[in-house]
């Protein structure tokens, strides 16, 4: 297995500091237990199948500290946001009330930072926090549990439809070498609907490490649209686990866009527990810098009949970057009439870029239709010639073709405000 995390590491020190902050005793005990488990499990190594292409050992050698609120707000940090939204802003992992805007929130909805929710609604939050996450598979979830103190708690009651998107904005400002471990919990009760966008940005922050876990519970007939925009600094590490739990007739749409970080890893786990649940996952990964590494791992667990899932991810790789895509559909014996689809397309723009893709199927029942497809290729020479023949410069032509390559995924976003926002971000920060 993997090496045990060395006891003398920086980790021990910062864990002691967080333990001295007051928290309910059950949480203290839970965190200590999770910390112990993480130490026993250790960081995953490249010998492990699921981590074959992901080098994370440098994390152990880096001295991360705990994040501190920055009082220097970047001037324009909220300017480019969506209009009419419910906004929660985090400053280096700490909630900032002054910058947040909750006036559009329907009164029956509970939306608050996790620390406040722990005080106001302890009985509500506790069962969700005490969930045993599969840290053997993904040790960073143990680590996140060990440092549990902040994040978001969102609970939408029955039959409630929130008309405005909710924006979780995690800003990393003016601090380097810190580790933040936000935990977001979203509970959508029967017949409710919500649109969420989680965004991570950096302003003069470098070499930091974000280890985020987002838990999404959708009860029957609920619908959740979850968007994520990862725009971390190019020296940072971003490790995210998104765990989705779906009940009967529920519908979840996810859309992940990654273009930041030196190393980013998104683990999206979908559990379809009850029949007729559907989940549609889309994503883009745009790598434009040397030594950039972005991983996308998807695991769809079909445990009930008549469930549908689809995956559509596209990636563009330039310079000496490396991307990994791995998705797996697991259909249990009970999962009759499963319909699952996985598609992954990659466009390589440079001769030193590398992509490793592995769409997997593991099927234990017969009445299913499961398909997957993956391609890796370059810009079509004919299309390039066509554009050049019309006087368009090579650079611009390549950009145009790369843009065309990902546009169909962005076009699939139903909410037009969200579509424009993501389109704008992609063109501005990924240059497409």
């Amino acid at each position, binding site marked *: 297995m993997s090496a045990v995390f060395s006891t003398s590491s920086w980790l021990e020190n910062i864990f002691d500091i967080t333990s001295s902050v007051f928290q309910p005793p059950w949480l203290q005990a839970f965190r200590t237990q999770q910390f112990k488990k993480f130490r026993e499990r250790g960081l995953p190594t490249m010998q492990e199948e699921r981590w074959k292409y992901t080098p994370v050992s440098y994390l152990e050698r880096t001295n991360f500290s705990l994040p501190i609120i920055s009082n220097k707000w970047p001037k324009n940090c909220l300017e480019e946001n969506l209009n009419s939204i419910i906004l929660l802003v985090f400053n280096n992992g700490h909630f900032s009330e002054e910058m947040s805007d909750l006036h559009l929130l329907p009164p029956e909805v509970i939306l608050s930072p996790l620390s406040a929710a722990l005080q106001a609604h302890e009985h509500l939050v506790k069962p969700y926090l005490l969930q045993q996450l599969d840290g053997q598979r993904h040790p960073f979830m143990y680590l996140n549990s060990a440092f549990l103190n902040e994040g978001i708690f969102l609970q939408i009651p029955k039959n409630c439809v929130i008309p405005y998107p909710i924006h979780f904005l995690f800003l990393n400002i003016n601090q380097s070498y810190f580790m933040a471990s936000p935990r977001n919990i979203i509970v959508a009760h029967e017949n409710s609907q919500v649109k969420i966008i989680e965004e991570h940005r950096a302003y003069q922050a470098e070499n930091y490490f974000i280890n985020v876990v987002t838990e999404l519970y959708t009860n029957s007939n609920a619908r959740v649209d979850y968007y994520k925009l990862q725009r971390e600094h190019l020296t940072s590490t971003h490790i995210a686990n998104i765990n989705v739990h779906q009940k009967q007739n529920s519908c979840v749409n996810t859309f992940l866009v990654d273009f930041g970080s030196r190393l980013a890893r998104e683990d999206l786990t979908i559990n379809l527990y009850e029949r007729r649940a559907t989940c549609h996952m889309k994503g883009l990964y745009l790598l434009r810098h040397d030594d950039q590494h972005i991983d996308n791992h998807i695991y769809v667990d079909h445990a009930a009949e008549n469930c549908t899932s689809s995956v559509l991810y596209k990636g563009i790789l330039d310079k000496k970057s490396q991307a990994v895509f791995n998705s797996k559909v697991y259909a249990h014996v009970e999962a009759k009439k499963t319909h699952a689809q996985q598609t992954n397309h990659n466009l*390589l723009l440079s001769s030193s*870029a590398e*992509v490793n893709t*592995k769409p997997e199927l593991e099927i234990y029942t*017969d009445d299913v*239709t*499961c398909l*997957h497809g993956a391609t890796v*290729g370059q810009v079509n020479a004919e299309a390039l010639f066509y554009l050049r023949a019309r006087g368009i410069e090579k650079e611009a032509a390549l950009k145009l073709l790369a843009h065309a390559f990902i546009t169909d995924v962005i076009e699939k976003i139903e909410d037009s405000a969200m579509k424009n926002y993501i389109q704008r971000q992609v063109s501005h920060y990924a240059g497409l």
Partner: protein
Amino acid sequence: MTNQYLKQIVNKNYQYGFVTAIESDTFAPGLSEEVIHHISKLKNEPEFMLQWRLRAYQYWLTLSPPRWAHVNFPNIDYQNIIYYSAPRVKKDGPASLEEVDPKLLETYKKLGIPLHEQGRLAGVAVDAVFDSVSVATTFKAKLAEAGVIFCSFSEAVQEYPALVEKYLGTVVPYRDNFFAALNSAVFSDGSFVYIPKGVRCPMELSTYFRINAANTGQFERTLIIADADSHVSYLEGCTAPMRDENQLHAAVVELVALENAEIKYSTVQNWYPGDEEGRGGIYNFVTKRGACRGKHAKISWTQIETGSAITWKYPSVILQGDDSIGEFYSVALTNHHQQADTGTKMIHIGKNTRSTIISKGISAGFGQNTYRGLVRVLPQALYARNYTQCESLLLSATCGAHTFPYIEVKNPTSQIEHEAYTSKIGADQLFYCRQRGLSIEDAISMIVNGFCKRVFNELPMEFAVEAQKLLEVSLEGSVG
């Protein structure tokens, strides 16, 4: 209702399960340096072979059995296996077919192998391997005329040691994996083929493998070298008696194709698959690999895998030469409690290299069928091209079909496509056939055959018919 028919079709019995009562020289079970010395001495091998075997054995001792494949089986006790068993023959070995034990010939006759030269009409040259040693090779004279060397491995070691030393272990080194190391240490025989420059082998070459003795492991090694501008088509078939205990078969096949050469390697693997409860059967842990060393070389693997309790096999192609081509066509069927973890590796190194992978998996009963493949494109492999298609057909609610394709691309000029599909026989397809007056049985057999057609088309004629029949036999009683 459909289930019943499927069951009938799938559950047909294994017809090669007989045992031949024949005198044989057999070692005591167990593996040690002594055993290896003994094998080497029996075979009268030159020193380099012995040293190579010993190195492989030393390396094997440092390894532990691989566990990553999607198969379950109890730990194998490697000290409880007989590493050498040979039909007892006169000291110098058979000079012609007349000297071969008639019982052996009868066995091969039962299996339908045209060992006697009266089988000339079939036009297939056969090298038959019984337990651990090669018993007879037909059509030697005719092949020699064309300059083709086709003989047992032991003979090759005696007569062409230079060729053996030059190529042995260059495609599958003994350090490759656990079973390759074991095979390198103890392999007792196999086939050797050398096609000289510019020669098109005048007939299909074929090896027939038969495990007869109980408790033995079969470790054979095949080495095929196609020199520049040559062409060869090679067939391999296998059967074993029905026994309640599992037997190990760990073979190594190495193919070398030089400039403009083409090797076509077809396998119909029908080792005893175990009974309905999953007792007995062969563990088929095979390492097969080909290297396209020269420009425009081509290696094509075709396999029909219907037998074995467990199949663990990844015929691969290393596309080293520019413009070389690798192909992999496979039908793997798992029924009852059979497990298969099979697929291919295509390593693109040269420019303009192309590879095609067509894999069809059929699972019935409690069978678990896994496709595991790797397509790797290295940075220097400009304009590499791969097309992969793997499809799985599910015939029962208790079986499983899995797909684990690895695609690793380090070159932007390459074009890689992969698609996979898993489903059961469509109700509408069945309805369509039934509506046109076909019985359910015929309809299913037609659909399954249609499903495999693309692979069967790649087989040499005689084999295609056999494969089709074999599939029907293996499926009997499972279609549902």
